[in-house]
């Protein structure tokens, strides 16, 4: 039954253990299948980008062109959302975008582990963005960063209502950012597995079962297309929201 279990694909298995800190129930560290795919993601991105652009062709070939398009795409995203000043965060946004995109895309390969289907990974990435915003916001603007919670042009008597809302919305950013990515990837992979699992279950049920299994097959094909779209869109959404949050840190007054 493990073949059609939709949860099995998210199980983390040790490839080799590293250390267990603090006894039997303590912190267990290991190189896992998740770690393997994180390494694979970084390797794919780095090797592709570095090797494809190593020729430094004035007239790019197709491989180099893809790297340049990716660069310009993210650069324009950062520049349009966070301004030219935001370009100092370009490597961060670029790393986040490519990491999530490639991790999602690798996850679409059958039997591959999807790194972003674990809340702790997406939460860590969103906390990285959140803490960057807070630290940079205070370092650059000092106490003026708190203006973020006091929208300009709002009458004084509304401020007691608006400011808590702004604070809550600010604090919920890392949660919404991480849950959005995690939820989309997790739900998509479960749905895909459930529908294609129906097919496996239906085929042995005689003629009608086998004929009816075409429906989940078609559904599976459609969902695969949708999941590729989701994989790309979620990486884009994460990157765009990161840019917008960074823009808050750079220009805290609305």
């Amino acid at each position: 039954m493990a073949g059609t279990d939709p949860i099995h694909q998210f199980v983390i298995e040790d490839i080799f253990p590293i250390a267990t800190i603090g006894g039997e129930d303590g912190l267990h560290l290991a190189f896992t299948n998740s770690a393997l795919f994180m390494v694979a993601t970084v390797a794919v991105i780095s090797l592709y980008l570095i090797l494809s652009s190593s020729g430094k062709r004035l007239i790019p070939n197709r491989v180099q062109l893809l790297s340049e398009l990716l660069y310009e795409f993210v650069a324009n995203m950062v520049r349009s959302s966070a301004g030219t000043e935001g370009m100092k965060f370009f490597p961060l946004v670029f790393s986040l975008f490519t990491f999530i995109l490639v991790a999602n895309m690798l996850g679409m390969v059958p039997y591959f582990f999807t790194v972003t289907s674990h809340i702790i990974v997406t939460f860590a990435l969103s906390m990285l963005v959140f803490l960057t915003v807070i630290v940079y916001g205070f370092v650059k603007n000092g106490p003026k960063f708190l203006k973020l919670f006091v929208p300009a042009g709002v009458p004084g008597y509304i401020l007691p209502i608006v400011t808590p809302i702004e604070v809550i919305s600010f604090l919920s950013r890392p949660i919404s950012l991480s849950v959005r990515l995690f939820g989309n990837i997790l739900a998509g992979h479960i749905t895909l597995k459930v529908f294609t699992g129906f097919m496996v279950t239906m085929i042995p049920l005689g003629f009608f079962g086998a004929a009816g299994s075409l429906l989940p097959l078609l559904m599976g094909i459609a969902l695969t297309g949708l999941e590729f779209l989701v994989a790309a869109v979620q990486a884009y959404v994460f990157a765009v929201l990161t840019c917008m949050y960074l823009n808050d840190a750079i220009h805290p007054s609305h």
Partner: protein
Amino acid sequence: MAGLIVAQAQEAPAENTGETMQSETTMEVVGDELHAAEEELHEATELHGDEHATGVFPPFDPATFGSQLLWLAITFAALYLLMSRVALPQIGGILADRRGRIDADLKAAEESRQKTDAAIAAYEEALASARAKAQGIASESRDAIAADLAAKRTRVEADLAAKVNAAEAGITQTKTAALAHVDEIAAETAQAVVSQLVGDVSAEAARSAVAKVKE
């Protein structure tokens, strides 16, 4: 908060395994108490030879958080360093080079265009002045030829007029001379005719007779 997550985490796999496996044991689990659910789940997962070692929905299993965070930190830091130190400056350099090259080329093209424009203007100017000069020369020579022609014509005409006048004068003189001789000839002829017919007659008589006839 943490307790809530754990509770959700423990319920979630129960529901999911319940839906797909449709096993009675897991269906019971959903309704059960938390501790009972955990125990039942252990049984259920063991029963199906599943690999949920802890019985928790894998994405919410805190036992794996340490390893994931460790490797995420290592890999993402490596990615960030590789991107910010190697890949992005390299690609950015290519793009900057290209932009510089395009700008330089455009500038050179603009300079060439200006040079071309200047050359065209100089050519046009030279052409215009040459044309003007040519027209000047042409009209000058035309005038000179015309003046020469007119001078020659007037000279020839004057010459011709003088000759015509001289000829006319000659004719008039000859005519008067001839007319002057007519009387003499007529008188001589009349004398000769009369002397042949009636005998001698004086030249004087003949002349007066002719004069009488003329009147």
